């Protein structure tokens, strides 16, 4: 009984933790835009958590810069299982226009497996909602697999 309850709840209350890995802030702003009355992801149970310990979904923006790499990886490691890693925008997926820069050591999938990538520069908030919905699904799958 508990298991079913927990499984069902897991899909309804995914909490996000947002990591900026050297982003230009475009994607960050769009992510915050999701909390505005227009998009209001809270109605789907999403919430921005203040610390990785509370999060289910880690949202990474920005190409992974040399400075931020260790921090990003450490923070991702600190998220309790089950967790889903979402890349927001093109940067963390491929470094985008910053590829080849001396200070960029991305993309992120060199270091951790990415579960969902949302393309766009920046993605439209609706696309982010799509991505997060997909992430929630994966979350449920991961919980089921455990």
């Amino acid at each position, binding site marked *: 009984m*508990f298991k079913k*309850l*927990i*499984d*069902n*709840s*897991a899909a*309804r*209350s*995914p*909490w996000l933790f947002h990591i900026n890995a050297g982003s230009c802030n475009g994607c960050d702003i769009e992510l915050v835009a999701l909390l505005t*009355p227009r998009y*209001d992801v*809270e*109605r*789907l*149970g999403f*919430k*921005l*958590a*203040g*610390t990785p*310990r*509370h999060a*289910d979904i880690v949202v990474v923006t920005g190409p992974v810069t040399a400075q931020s790499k260790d921090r990003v990886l450490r923070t991702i490691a*600190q998220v*309790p*299982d*089950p967790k889903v890693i979402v890349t927001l925008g093109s940067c963390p997926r491929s470094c985008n226009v910053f590829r080849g820069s001396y200070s960029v050591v991305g993309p992120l999938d060199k270091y951790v497996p990415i579960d969902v990538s949302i393309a766009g520069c920046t993605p439209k908030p609706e696309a982010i909602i799509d991505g997060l919905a997909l992430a929630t699904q994966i979350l449920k799958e991961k*919980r089921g697999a455990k």
Partner: protein
Amino acid sequence: MEFLIKIVYILIFPGLLFSSVFGLWLAGIDRKVVARMQRRVGPPVLQPTYDFFKLLGKETIVPSCAARHTFLIAPYVGLISLVVTALFIPIGGLQAFGGMADMVVVLYLITIPSLAMIFGGSASASPFAGVGVSRSMVAIMAYELPLILVLLSIGRAAGGTYVTFSLERVTLYQQMFGSFLFDWRLIPAALAMLLVIPCEVGAHPFDVGEAETEICEGPLVEYSGAPLAVFKLSHAIKMFIMTALFCALFLGGISTGMLWLDVVIALALCSVVTLICMTLLHAITARLKVEQVFKFFWTVVSGLALVSLILVWFVD
């Protein structure tokens, strides 16, 4: 039979099960209505419940440099003492264990969960938690002064020619002479109490201790999984307890003769109080700074409560 009823009281009706469910429901409508006030759709009313169960299913990480036992035990102690406190507060004339603790005791009992959170956070060895602990404690210092002034005013008003701390007598007095909310001398105290509730619960705009954007939720920064769920549940139950305390202190006079109807009315009033003092405040204010909270409570709110105290003592 007597014993069975007691067990029902403890575990089901005002006790564990009901206070959890009702607390989560209050937290739910709070979130929903805040969203609606900001012209959002808002989460479903059951959202806090979902959050609670989801957190139960998460991994619990104990930081390697934390004081393990304190870290893990603290949330449960907080929860249990809250549930026990819920039993002492009359709900619409229903006194589960009202004769065992008075207002002042309740005042102290409701600091135990805050303390549990403070010590739990402290045990997690995070500097964010350290700052959060400091801020939570300042918030406690801030609201305790007006709260005791409010309780003393009520103790005097309900004592007639004498004083009383007994919640039971406060309720009885109101049933005989009408609710204190309609006593003009106590209106400032009621206002003060309405401002104390969000601070006690740790809701906007007084949630300096758990400011998630500034200090990563303060004492809760290292908590995950079941202990965090328990903290969230405690938070919800605290909303219930504080509003129920308000109803018992200021709206205790409502009596229809039928106990169950009284209880239902009291619970409805709890929800209304929640909406007024937490939801409305949340929707229209931004978080204060910690020294502003302290100053606000020791000047404005205490002033209000003191006015009531003086009125109660000198005006018949």
